[in-house]
């Protein structure tokens, strides 16, 4: 019924590790944590869904909300998931075109930081 939520820092990224089943019962808990992290200024967020055993459209809605909030704050969200079903859901909803999906946290934090190209390109 409750999600396991832990954060770790992979500067400049903050990684939010989610464990458990995301549905209407648990989504509010995830939403709250996402808001808390972004609003304290950690708006470059990696959502690590590696250990999410189940996620329905309510959970997908929280991911969408996270992307929106992070981008509004000048940051971005990257999503890590290997679960085939979850990958499929992002594909069916075409959300895989809206934000980036990675297989591993290491890959997600290795990519360029959003805005870095324009800041560093010269």
């Amino acid at each position, binding site marked *: 019924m409750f999600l396991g939520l832990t954060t770790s820092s992979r500067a400049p990224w903050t990684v939010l590790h989610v464990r458990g089943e995301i549905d*209407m019962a648990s989504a509010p808990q995830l939403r709250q944590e996402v808001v808390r992290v972004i609003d304290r200024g950690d708006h470059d967020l990696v959502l690590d869904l590696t250990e999410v055993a*189940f996620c*329905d459209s309510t959970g997908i809605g929280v991911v*969408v909300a996270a*992307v*929106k909030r992070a981008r509004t704050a000048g940051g971005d969200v990257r999503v890590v998931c290997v679960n085939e*079903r979850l990958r499929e859901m992002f594909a069916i909803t075409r959300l895989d075109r809206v934000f980036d999906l990675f297989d591993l946290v290491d890959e997600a934090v290795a990519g360029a930081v959003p805005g870095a190209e324009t800041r560093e390109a010269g």
Partner: protein
Amino acid sequence: MDADGGVELEIPAHAEFLSLVRAVVATAAALDPRLGDERIEDLRLAVSEATTNAIESHAQLGSEERIAIRCDLGEDRIEVEVQDQGEGFDPDSLSPMPPPTDPERLEYEHGLGLPLMRVLADETRIRTGADGTAVSLVVYTTPRGRS
């Protein structure tokens, strides 16, 4: 559909019972040895979506009525019906999602449930009216769903 051959479940219209509905559907579906894990997972997710909508419809009315879920193991299919006593809705008048390239897309946290059900289930039937909605989700157990 043979009503006597099925499982019936009634739950309070609260989100915490979703995991129970999923457990029932997965366990009932697993009774049919022809159904692979992937199809069971399809059905489990589709039913979870339908039950979520049913629970929401009662919440909107402030209704304390219960939600009924029926699983029928048929000859060539598993059919799960989720029945609520909410206000109903018009499935045809739901606004379509903007394309992923549209920045507006991020305004849509909702509206994914029904499209997902339609992809996951082999058949999705919705009967809806002022006294409630019944969503039937069918997964075939034989290749063409006809025995």
